[in-house]
């Protein structure tokens, strides 16, 4: 049987050995482009996601906004964030941004995850959760700079956008991409998306008077496989808390791959130490002990 698989793995959470998919097969880097300047907040992507993934419906309540819910849920991976941004002239700019897993090149969730193989990154860049290996510790939740993974309290496992890895693995585009009515969502290779995004940003600067238009593809996490075109790239925070410089707490990497094993070994050495003590020095008994057979320095009995 060939090693050929639709999606090969290049990174795996908390996995100590070599990763099975590295270097065995060529692959393109896939990428989702979200042009917030042509997003109409219609939520087709939200529905397409729930429908494709057959996720159960949940209750929502009116919260003085068009936004479906405050943040993504374990069964709602894709959420348009609506923000009314006041302009200087008193008018309002109504911003809509599709919020979902960014499929970071350097995923914080994967860095934080202690469970072997629960989070993987395929060679095409998709970051996927394998719930079978997930232990529900939610470290990924804190490791994610975008507040994306969410725990299902029923199964006690964490879920998030898969970038429709099942569809992409079969050569299809993700469900949200396909549905998007205005084409503000696009899907292709990272290079192509980057090119289209930069062209669009330039068009916005040159022809639509948006001097600050730009592309969001944060370097601080090695870039993402979901990139945005923003009206104002200098202030991504206004789009419902898109971090300007997303970071992964260093402690995850250092702790997990350096101190964890070292200190673990240290604890084991504690066990080893007492064993050696017993073997070399021997137990301390209540005194007086019975005298040795042959003086004080012998071998017991």
């Amino acid at each position, binding site marked *: 049987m060939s090693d050929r698989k639709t999606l090969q793995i290049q990174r795996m959470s908390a996995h100590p050995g070599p990763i099975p998919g590295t270097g065995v097969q060529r692959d393109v880097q896939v990428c989702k482009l979200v042009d917030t300047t042509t997003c109409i907040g219609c939520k087709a992507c939200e529905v397409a996601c729930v429908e494709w993934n057959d996720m159960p419906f949940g209750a929502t309540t009116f919260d003085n906004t068009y936004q479906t819910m405050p943040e993504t849920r374990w069964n709602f991976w894709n959420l348009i964030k609506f923000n009314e941004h006041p302009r200087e002239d008193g008018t309002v700019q109504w911003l809509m941004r599709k919020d979902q897993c960014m499929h970071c090149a350097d995923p914080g969730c994967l860095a934080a995850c202690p469970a072997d193989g629960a989070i993987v990154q395929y060679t095409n860049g998709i970051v996927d959760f394998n719930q079978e290996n997930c232990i*529900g510790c939610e470290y990924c939740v804190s490791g994610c700079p975008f507040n994306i993974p969410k725990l299902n309290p029923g199964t006690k496992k964490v879920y998030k956008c898969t970038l429709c890895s099942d569809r992409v693995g079969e050569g299809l585009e993700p469900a949200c991409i396909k549905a998007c009515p205005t084409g503000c969502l696009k899907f292709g290779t990272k290079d192509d998306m980057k090119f289209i995004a930069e062209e669009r940003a330039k068009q916005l600067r040159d022809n639509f008077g948006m001097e600050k238009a730009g592309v969001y593809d944060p370097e601080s996490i090695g870039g993402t496989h979901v990139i945005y075109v923003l009206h104002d790239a200098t202030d991504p925070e206004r789009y419902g808390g898109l971090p300007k410089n997303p970071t992964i707490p260093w402690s*995850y990497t250092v702790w997990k791959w350096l101190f964890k094993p070292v200190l673990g070994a240290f604890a084991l050495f504690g066990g080893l130490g007492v064993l050696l003590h017993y073997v070399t020095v021997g137990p301390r008994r209540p005194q007086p002990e019975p*005298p040795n057979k042959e003086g004080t320095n012998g071998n017991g009995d």
Partner: protein
Amino acid sequence: MATAIERFDERARRRFESLGRTVVYVGELRRHPVYTRFLHWMVALFFFLALFSGFGIYLPWLFRWFTPIFGGGPLARALHPWFGIFCVFFFGLQMLNWLKPMMWTPADTNWMRNLRGIVSGKEKLEPPDTGFFNAGQKLQFWEIVIGCVVFLITGIILWAGARTFGSTLVAISYVLHDVSAIVMLGGIFVHIYLSTIGEPGTFQAMTRGAVSEPWAWTFHPAWYREVTGRDPRESYEKAREETERAVTQNPSESKLRSK
């Protein structure tokens, strides 16, 4: 404050004493009352539950095999905080129970100076001013106290998660929680060793609650003096002479008695 705690502990001890028994045979001393023993084993139980469920979270690739005991990784993860809470709860009671005997004294400083001799086995007897607990025990006790505080705070932060406390705090807590566990784990190895094969005769202190007089004058001479009124050194010398005499008369008998 202290008196309130004492009153509380005293009541608890009396109550537990009426539920269980501590039999002290001739030649033995009452070491730990039922209440103390109960708390100890509760702490031990939940500590190990927390420890083993925690292993599955700490390094799943290595300790995944622990998790089926708890019904799989996610359930282990879900139970772990509860184990921790109970462990800390019982240890908290133990702490109140032991607050006084665990206070640091000049004798403990003295004990620490002799540490090398004690560990190497050269000093057969502990320093004569070693009381109910020696400095090593006290150190471990206070390490556990600190550890429990760290566990509790970081554990709650981890439990509530990044959405309540922010990911930075969670990330820091994650490290502290693990460090605390590692340190405590190291201590537990020593504790178990010393309370079992490392110092024979100790284990019964936490089971039956009584220890032999030789154990007492060997490891906690000051306590021996306190409860018997006798001088530990004298008692030891007397016993040694008796033993030697017995060996010359009947070598096979001496073994039984020393136990």
